[in-house]
């Protein structure tokens, strides 16, 4: 069989470059997110706005007021549902899911999101710790781990599609100049934490006798990009399938815990929102989980005594740290580790050829959408004076896109809980857990020191 196989000439199966644009959720996040930004920009330039569609509940004190709000704006909520369902429906269908399964799930997700968004606008929400991201997560976890969620509902619970779309929309509220200004600090802070955390996890795992491929998969999962980092590394180094599953379960376990623990610690320490966002961005393990924590913490601004800064600062600082500082380097990690695996580690009998092209192939493309959205709004804003920006661009362009982003994030937070099964944690034994946990401890402490001591001046100014 072997001789026969080796004597034959077969090109590896490669899909065309165009297929990538409709088969990856990164690209769908770009199409949907940038499409909304382009429409909003076009309407603003022509003197109109997307704000009728981008409905967002207002602050309320008594329950009947909240109900009346939703009833009075029912048409707008229906229109918003139709737009989201159409856009995400096209994307999900292109990814290979049936619309007949997506639509009912997404309808329920949307209704639950209205409830969570409205709850978050209650004037006592922060007092009772009812931050929408945390409530969404708990609600989702409770449902998924008690009554259960049918498998067909997967079509409507696409965490990555929703979070990436939200991040692309987030780019519209971050000027390109701010990203460039923060870039060096973000990259230095993220590089320090990533290298140290990877080193701690990798060498602890090897010291405990674990396979180098598992150690590397765990290391990148903890240091760079969570589950995405783990699977990119597993593929690059040729890890056992079981190794990938172990890393995934450990990342999810700690990422979910960190969603609750990091905002709680930051609240106890009364950190400004920009500083807390940077810490969460440095020490959380996954984009979706970190955004839940950062958005929850941002919600404390103005509601919890002693917490300074704007709500936006927590989410913005998190996104820069996590996305620009850590996520974009995933291809480089995978490429370097594939070289090490090929040249230094014990052979598995499976051969691979490290190729620098992997850096681009594994690049999280949605980051391009985030930067383009930022560039579009920056260019449009540059044509206005500061007074006109506050009067025209902010309410007509930026605010509606921020509202749409909050919707996308709310879908995400619910979907995380609804797709997480607690019984899937701890499938790999004690040693991987110890190694990963050692990295978590170092990561959290180092992230805290860098955000609150070394770069505290920068992150405090960032949040103002």
């Amino acid at each position: 069989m072997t001789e026969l196989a080796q004597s034959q000439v077969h090109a590896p199966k490669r899909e065309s470059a165009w297929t990538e644009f409709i088969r990856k959720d990164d690209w769908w996040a770009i199409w949907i997110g940038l499409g909304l930004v382009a429409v909003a920009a076009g309407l603003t330039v022509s003197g109109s706005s997307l704000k009728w569609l981008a409905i967002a509940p207002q602050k309320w004190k008594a329950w009947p007021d909240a109900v009346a709000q939703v009833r009075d704006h029912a048409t707008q909520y229906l229109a918003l549902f139709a737009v989201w369902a159409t856009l995400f429906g096209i994307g999900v269908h292109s990814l290979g899911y049936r619309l007949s399964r997506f639509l009912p799930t997404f309808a329920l997700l949307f209704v639950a999101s209205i409830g969570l968004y409205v709850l978050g606008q209650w004037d006592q929400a922060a007092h009772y710790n009812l931050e929408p991201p945390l409530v969404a997560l708990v609600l989702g976890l409770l449902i998924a781990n008690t009554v259960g969620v049918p498998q067909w509902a997967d079509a409507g619970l696409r965490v990555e599609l929703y979070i990436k779309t939200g991040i692309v929309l987030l780019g519209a509220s971050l000027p390109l100049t701010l990203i460039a200004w923060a870039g060096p600090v973000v990259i230095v802070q993220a590089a320090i934490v990533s290298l140290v955390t990877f080193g701690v996890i990798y060498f602890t795992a090897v010291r405990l006798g674990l396979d180098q491929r598992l150690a590397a998969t765990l290391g990148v999962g903890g240091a760079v990009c969570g589950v995405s980092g783990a699977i990119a590394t597993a593929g690059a180094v040729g890890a056992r399938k079981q190794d990938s599953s172990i890393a995934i379960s450990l990342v999810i376990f700690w990422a979910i815990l960190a969603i609750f623990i990091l905002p709680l610690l930051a609240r106890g320490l009364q950190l400004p929102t920009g500083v807390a966002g940077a810490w969460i961005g440095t020490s959380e393990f996954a984009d979706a989980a970190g955004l839940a924590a950062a958005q929850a913490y941002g919600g404390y601004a103005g509601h919890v005594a002693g917490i300074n800064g704007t709500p936006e600062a927590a989410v913005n600082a998190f996104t820069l740290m996590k996305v620009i500082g850590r996520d974009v380097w995933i291809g480089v990690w995978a490429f370097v580790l594939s070289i090490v695996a090929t040249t230094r580690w014990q052979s598995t009998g499976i051969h691979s050829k490290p190729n620098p092209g992997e850096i681009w192939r594994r690049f999280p493309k949605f980051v391009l959408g985030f930067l383009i959205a930022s560039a579009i709004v920056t260019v449009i804003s540059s044509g206005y004076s500061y007074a006109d920006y506050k009067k025209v661009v902010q309410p007509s362009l930026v605010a509606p896109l921020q509202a749409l982003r909050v919707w996308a994030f709310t879908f995400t937070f619910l979907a995380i809980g609804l797709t997480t099964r607690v019984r899937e944690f701890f499938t790999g034994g004690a040693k991987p857990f110890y190694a990963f946990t050692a990295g978590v401890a170092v990561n959290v402490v180092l992230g805290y020191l860098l955000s609150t001591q070394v770069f505290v001046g920068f992150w405090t100014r960032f949040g103002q």
Partner: protein
Amino acid sequence: MKVRARSTAAVPAAMWRGAVASALEPSCGSCRYFCQQPHEIESQMPGLRSLSSAHASVRASDGICRRHDRYLAATSHCADYQQRM
């Protein structure tokens, strides 16, 4: 198992040879044991869809080798290759 330890200086040359050879050699991407279907990958790796996705760009065209029970790049290859029909 025998440990493969090549000089790192040989890596660029090996990479170049690999890039040229990848179009000629049978590789996982066309092997019958190799599964690249995102739905299948998500079902075999519980938790993947919670905080990531098999449709993500970072996955590139990696997949699961049913023969070796490994998660591999599509450009990998081994002696057990069998062309997908």
